[in-house]
């Protein structure tokens, strides 16, 4: 349902706005031809891309592609893009879905790796801060956390590149994307800076959330009960305190991860990682509707999926939710 709304909105923005601005089908098509193409070429392109059809028909074609697939003439022959087919780029003419799927491992590696880092660091910092409220560590880490949430990634990203790669030479060239399956070491080396930079941004929020949650949880009655049983303090904190604190953290995590899988736009651009976010940026700057549609749908799907998983995990974590 949401996917439909999203796709219709994207479509409408793409076609109706230029139309309102007075652009003809040919004007629209002139975005997708070589520089200085003549009128005939532009006109042919408009026909090829179907811009002369009513918007509703074009949308219908898009939906049909998703359910039935699309046949495309690539020159020497016709190929079938099987359902679910998100069409072909107006600009590069590459099929959209394989391109996105192809980039998925990159965004996935980046997002999941960063998530591991930020959850561990964020939560650990939050716990320690909460247990040592008011201490030097607490104040220092909360100060850093504030910096983390407020510094833009293209700044932290470029600075960390300059320091760790160019200055200290601690990591290699981030731009050489290598899949995990090919060379795990290089893979990690390439991703460590994006992970850390991205994690810095997110860990801050998690530290603050965890700290607040821990402060609240540790004053709960059941913590007192756990202590009264003679449980060691470490177990009290981790097993009883943290467990309850993690519920809101989990919610936030699901939403963050869902958004991130739809493309960490700034991080990917900053580190030249050819992931989904970079794809989205390029698609938008090229006015490449099929790519924009594809990436929006995939991103929306990720958000929906993440929400679903969070809801399911919620039930696993909090038995009180299971009843409902």
């Amino acid at each position: 349902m949401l996917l439909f709304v999203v796709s219709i909105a994207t479509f409408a923005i793409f076609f109706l706005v230029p139309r309102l601005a007075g652009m003809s089908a040919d004007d629209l098509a002139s975005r997708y031809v070589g520089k200085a193409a003549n009128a005939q070429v532009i006109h042919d392109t408009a026909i090829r891309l179907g811009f002369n059809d009513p918007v509703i028909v074009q949308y219908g074609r898009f939906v049909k592609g998703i359910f039935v697939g699309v046949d495309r003439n690539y020159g020497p022959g016709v190929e079938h893009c099987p359902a679910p087919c998100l069409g072909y780029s107006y600009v590069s003419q590459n099929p959209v879905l394989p391109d996105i799927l192809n980039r998925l491992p990159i965004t996935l590696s980046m997002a999941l790796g960063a998530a591991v880092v930020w959850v561990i660091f964020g939560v650990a910092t939050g716990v320690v801060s909460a247990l040592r409220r008011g201490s030097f560590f607490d104040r220092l880490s909360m100060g850093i956390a504030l910096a983390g949430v407020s510094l833009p990634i293209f700044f932290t990203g470029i600075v960390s590149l300059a320091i760790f790669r160019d200055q200290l030479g601690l990591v290699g060239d981030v731009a050489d994307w290598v899949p995990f399956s090919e060379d795990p070491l290089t893979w990690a080396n390439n991703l460590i800076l994006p992970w850390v930079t991205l994690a810095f941004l997110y860990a801050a929020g998690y530290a603050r959330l965890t700290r607040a949650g821990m402060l609240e949880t540790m004053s709960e009655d059941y913590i007192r009960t756990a202590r009264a049983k003679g449980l060691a303090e470490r177990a009290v904190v981790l097993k009883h305190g943290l467990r309850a604190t993690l519920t809101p953290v989990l919610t936030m995590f699901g939403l963050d991860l869902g958004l991130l899988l739809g493309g960490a736009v700034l991080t990917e651009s900053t580190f030249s990682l050819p992931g989904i976010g970079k794809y989205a940026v390029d698609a938008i700057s090229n006015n490449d509707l099929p790519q924009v549609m594809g990436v929006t749908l995939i991103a929306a799907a990720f958000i929906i999926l993440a929400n679903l998983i969070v809801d399911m995990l919620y039930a696993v974590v909090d038995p009180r939710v299971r009843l409902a």
Partner: protein
Amino acid sequence: MSPFLDVKDLKIHFPTDDGLVKSVDGVTFSLERGKTLGIVGESGSGKSVTSLGILGLHKGRGANISGEIWLDGEELVGASQEHVRGLRGKKMAMIFQDPLSAMHPFYTVGDQIIEAYRIHNKVSKAVAKKHAIDMLGRVGIPEPGRRVDSYPHEFSGGMRQRAMIAMALSCDPELLIADEPTTALDVTVQAQILDLMRDLQREFDSALIIITHDLGVVAELSDDILVMYGGKCIEFGSADDIFYRPEHPYTWGLLGSMPRLDREPTERLLPIKGSPPSLINVPPGCAFHPRCPYAERTGDKARTEAPALAETEGGHLVRCHMAPAERRALWENEIKPVLETP
């Protein structure tokens, strides 16, 4: 031979931003195995802090603790945190007031009992689970084998309290402290729980401390009674002492405000006017004097000089400037008749 539990002049003070909170400020009592002590007093009088203090749960959390706590010949105020932790749950255990909030919502009742058991007993999970089921059965939970896997929120209030008791008893503690164990329950269930506790105490021969502001509960169970006011023990004695020969004006007030079956619950015979004292700016002299109807009888002393906890006779301790004879006369002539009017 010294008593099983002997608390002497226990003080627990919390430094806070507003000042030093003297939650417990001179509590003295003793308790033998197989006996029951009732601690009564208004809300905020320091009952819970006292009991948590005995369990050593204020240790290392910034509280100033002084006095002595002797448990089975061992002094606990000066003992290390780790040592006291080892005693907690095994030698002494506690039942809390609101079992819904006192049990972890994310773990099954069984898991929580198993955890308590396994802290002090090196046994496998399976063995511990058997034990947990056994304990649940002993506290009267039907189908314990099935309920052991339920979560606290799936239990009724009474069942939860039973589970809580099962958890506290899982390691056969020699000292059991029940902090308002029945406040959250309705009357019939209250009675069941109290019966259960009495039975179990007999069975385990443990020392039991019951904390409550309900004198009725105390009357039913206790051998001895400790009355607290503003962090201090103001009267201590046998149940008979407190119910039939009370000597402190505050205790009279408590007895007077006890609901009785033959009266409207709202009717209070001897209402205690005013509000409990601040624990930070404790009134000088007798802490009770702003509310005491007999304050002027002891003249300026009530306002300037703190009365000491003194023995009247046979272990009956009272903290009041009035002479014992005067107090007894007042009780016999003025108070008892009012309380006994049908």
